[in-house]
């Protein structure tokens, strides 16, 4: 076996070389012919070595190449084909003859990651349904879809040999079957049990995912205790352990590091290389904004259940990698189109028809760009749904009666945004329930209704999204925060601070005014993380609070992470993009406007206000057109409530740009937030307004 696999590896290297070299020059057919002949040698060698998988994969690749013969073969496809081939050879050569055909199925990454995606979807559905049943006890029979979700997971898990998952699903399914046939009433104990099973499955899926990503191979958690409870119910015994009549499923998944997150949070973002996550794209992508086939009122308050079912038929699943690729390519299309439009030859033409056609092309390009961006948008409702569950658990655990009210579930946001918002929102809701809301006794004393209310609201506001988390609890105690801040050395006295400034102190690291540390919150970790995360999403957070009446946290976020409006400025020969959202004003400096302090720090005086000046050419070490500030422009930029002025040479214009990361190599370059492709195809750097300002303090 060994010599053959060495030969095979050599052939694949050859193939990769042909691919790399053939790609850049336009000699498509010749390169393809070469690759085909290499492929046939591979498949012969593999056949004689008896590795059927390799034969198959090389056959697939050959067909792909042949079908594209003459035309351009998508490089990506060929590349992924070659990679698949390498994998097949590597697995054929790896010394695991003991591995049976069965276990190789469970190791098929593609199947496993499909399973993970599908199982998660079903588990989400289960959660929604269960919470709906709990809210509305009159609904006696469990819906068919609940039953089907468990059934599907069971089938898939069995196929992939995740026995524990299969077993739990099987028993739960039996239980639901009984309920469906009216042999069993769904009591709140049973709902608890079902939720507990749900948590178990969610954790197991997380574990399987970690395993698939190569991040440790924990053994499956033992479901025996859970199974015992389910079987007890099935056999008509009362659930044992009466002391734990409400078995709140809150076991910590991974003791130390994740202790801050409740268990239903999926382990952080999956690593990109096994990215199998998919976005659901409405089949009619062009009209996304208008498509959700539901009346806003129905969607606004209770359950997106019906809505989900209606929409399910019209959805296709798309790998996010493909979407990103599409967005990239559309971006290139826009650049190419604008290159043509600004071509001198075209500008001097008087051919009306040509001009008209190009305008039409421009219009279509814009539309395609908009549509491709819209595909990434998902309703925020799925995020709110997680909060439903959180509030339920918190309410049980703390003994406070809390109701969650949500508005604007159908507001759409960028999918990444919704994902990134999960943790901060969870922290804030937990905070509201734990710190904000009083105990039942306290509420009674102050004459409030016994059931407390946490309200989540999403709404559009001036091209941004506003998410408000309000509670009707005790409000923030200004004095207590000031005292604590003085004790921590953050303040000397708090007399002159506005409420807003005081409230923002709770976002300082290590800040917590909770009298006692509960396992829900109060450890002082959290709010600073929330603030950091919101800033990372280029959002802002504001607090309003009224003692005795409650607190509102307002998060203002951009619709998407991917696009910003920017002002393009020039310094020397280089162009930079300043996010428009932080620009307050652009002005031409006049004599007498600029003064120096202590002969080094420069300050601009605008309408009696002083703004420190940061010279972009100094910060970035660029040769400017002129070092005299009078020859350039000053931009007043606002960051974290402070405003400073940035000196640049000139303003070129305003452009909507797609934000791209500069990658790991240039991660955290001070003053640079990312890059974007400008109209001429070059990369422009997007300025990090806050980082620029802070950086100036180092100098």
């Amino acid at each position, binding site marked *: 076996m060994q010599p053959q696999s060495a030969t095979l590896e050599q052939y694949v290297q050859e193939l990769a070389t042909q691919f790399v070299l053939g790609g850049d020059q336009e000699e498509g057919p010749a390169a393809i012919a070469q690759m085909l002949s290499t492929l046939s040698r591979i498949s012969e060698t593999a056949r004689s070595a008896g590795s059927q998988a390799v034969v198959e994969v090389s056959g697939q690749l050959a067909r792909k190449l042949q079908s594209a013969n003459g035309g351009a073969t998508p490089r990506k496809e060929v590349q992924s084909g070659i990679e698949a081939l390498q994998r097949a050879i590597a697995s054929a050569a790896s010394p695991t003859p003991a591995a049976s055909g069965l276990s190789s199925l469970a190791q098929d990454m593609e199947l496993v990651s499909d399973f993970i995606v599908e199982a998660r979807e079903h588990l989400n559905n289960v959660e929604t349904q269960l919470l709906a049943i709990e809210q509305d006890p009159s609904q006696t029979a469990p819906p068919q879809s609940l039953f089907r979700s468990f059934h599907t997971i069971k089938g898939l898990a069995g196929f992939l040999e995740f026995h524990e998952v299969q077993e739990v699903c099987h028993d739960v399914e039996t239980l639901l079957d009984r309920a469906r046939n009216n042999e069993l009433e769904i009591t709140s104990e049973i709902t608890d049990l079902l939720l507990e099973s749900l948590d178990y499955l969610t954790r197991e899926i997380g574990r399987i995912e970690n395993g698939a990503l190569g991040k440790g191979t924990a053994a499956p958690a033992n479901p025996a205790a859970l199974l015992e409870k389910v079987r007890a119910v099935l056999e008509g015994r009362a659930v044992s352990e009466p002391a734990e009549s409400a078995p709140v499923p809150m076991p910590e998944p991974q003791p130390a590091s994740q202790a801050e997150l409740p268990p239903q949070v999926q382990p952080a973002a999956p690593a990109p290389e096994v990215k199998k996550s998919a976005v659901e794209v409405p089949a009619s992508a062009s009209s996304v904004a208008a498509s959700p086939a539901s009346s806003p009122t129905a969607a606004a308050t209770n359950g997106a259940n019906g809505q989900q079912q209606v929409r399910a038929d019209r959805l296709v699943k798309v790998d996010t990698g493909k979407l990103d690729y599409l967005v990239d390519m559309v971006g290139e299309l826009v650049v190419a189109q604008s290159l043509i439009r600004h071509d001198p030859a075209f500008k001097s033409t008087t051919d009306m028809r040509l001009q008209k056609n190009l305008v039409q092309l421009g219009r279509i390009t814009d539309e395609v760009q908009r549509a491709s961006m819209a595909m990434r948008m998902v309703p925020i409702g799925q995020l709110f749904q997680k909060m439903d569950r959180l509030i339920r658990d918190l309410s049980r655990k703390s003994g406070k009666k809390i109701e969650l009210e949500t508005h604007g579930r159908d507001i759409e946001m960028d999918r990444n945004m919704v994902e990134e918002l999960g943790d901060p929102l969870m922290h804030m809701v937990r905070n509201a329930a734990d710190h904000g809301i009083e105990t039942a006794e306290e509420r009674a004393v102050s004459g409030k209704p016994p059931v407390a209310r946490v309200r989540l609201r999403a709404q559009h506001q001036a091209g941004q999204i506003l998410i408000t988390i309000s509670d009707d609890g005790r409000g923030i105690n200004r004095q207590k925060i000031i005292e604590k801040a003085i004790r921590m050395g953050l303040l000397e006295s708090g007399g002159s601070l506005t409420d807003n400034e005081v409230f923002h102190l709770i976002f300082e690291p290590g800040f917590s005014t909770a009298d006692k540390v509960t396992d829900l919150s109060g450890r002082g970790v959290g709010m600073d993380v929330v603030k950091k995360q919101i800033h990372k999403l280029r959002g802002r957070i504001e607090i309003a609070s009224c003692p005795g009446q409650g607190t509102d946290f307002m998060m203002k976020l951009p619709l998407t992470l991917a696009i910003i409006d920017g002002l393009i400025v020039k310094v020397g020969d280089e162009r930079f993009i300043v996010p428009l959202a932080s620009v307050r004003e652009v002005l031409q400096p006049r004599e007498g406007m600029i003064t120096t302090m202590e002969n080094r720090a420069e300050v601009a005086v605008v309408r009696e206000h002083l703004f420190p000046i940061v010279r972009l050419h100094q910060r970035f070490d660029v040769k400017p057109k002129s070092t005299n500030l009078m020859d350039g422009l000053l931009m007043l930029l606002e960051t974290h409530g402070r405003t400073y002025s940035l000196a640049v040479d000139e303003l070129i214009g305003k452009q909507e740009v797609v934000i791209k990361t500069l990658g790991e190599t240039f991660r955290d370059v001070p003053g640079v937030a990312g890059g974007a492709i400008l109209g001429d195809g070059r*990369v422009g750097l997007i300025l990090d307004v806050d980082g620029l300002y802070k950086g100036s303090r180092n100098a």
Partner: protein
Amino acid sequence: MSNAVMQTEHSKTTAAQAGKYLVFQLAQEEFAIGVLSVREIIRTQDITRVPHTPPHMKGVINLRGKVIPVMDLRTKLGFPETEYDQRTCVIIVEILTEARSSLFMGLIVDGVAEVLNLAQADIQDVPDFGSTSPSPYLLGVAKTKGGIRIMLDINKVLSGHEVGGLQDILEASAETAKHSGTGDGVLA
């Protein structure tokens, strides 16, 4: 994206192995890197400089909508800088970082020569230079009829030393920036 490629590449970092190598020139010398980490070869393009980065990091380019960092391999390996000309190329490579994510990088070289099939017999260890220790980026030396080719460990050139070192500097400066920032901010 290309797990399999990268894993095999990784396991090869300990010693140079036989296989296909892309040969390119820097000044008078010829270098070779494993062909499996090479994604494509393009002409030089307009490079956007990124501030606060080491001199061999030239900046970023736009590769069909993707922003890719480029490194001047001459500067990186201690050769004197030259003007870019007709023969100057950018070799786009992809490696797997320690965090198991793929990292794209463009390497600016004087010119690409050929793809060479190196047998194990052609490859020798890096000679012992006595007092001066050899560069950590070298895998070995290949001696064929065409001459001597220095085999580079592309993973080490891009990851290990470089990315780590850069990040340490950046983190340190970000740290100080944060400290001086927050303290004043609260009192302001």
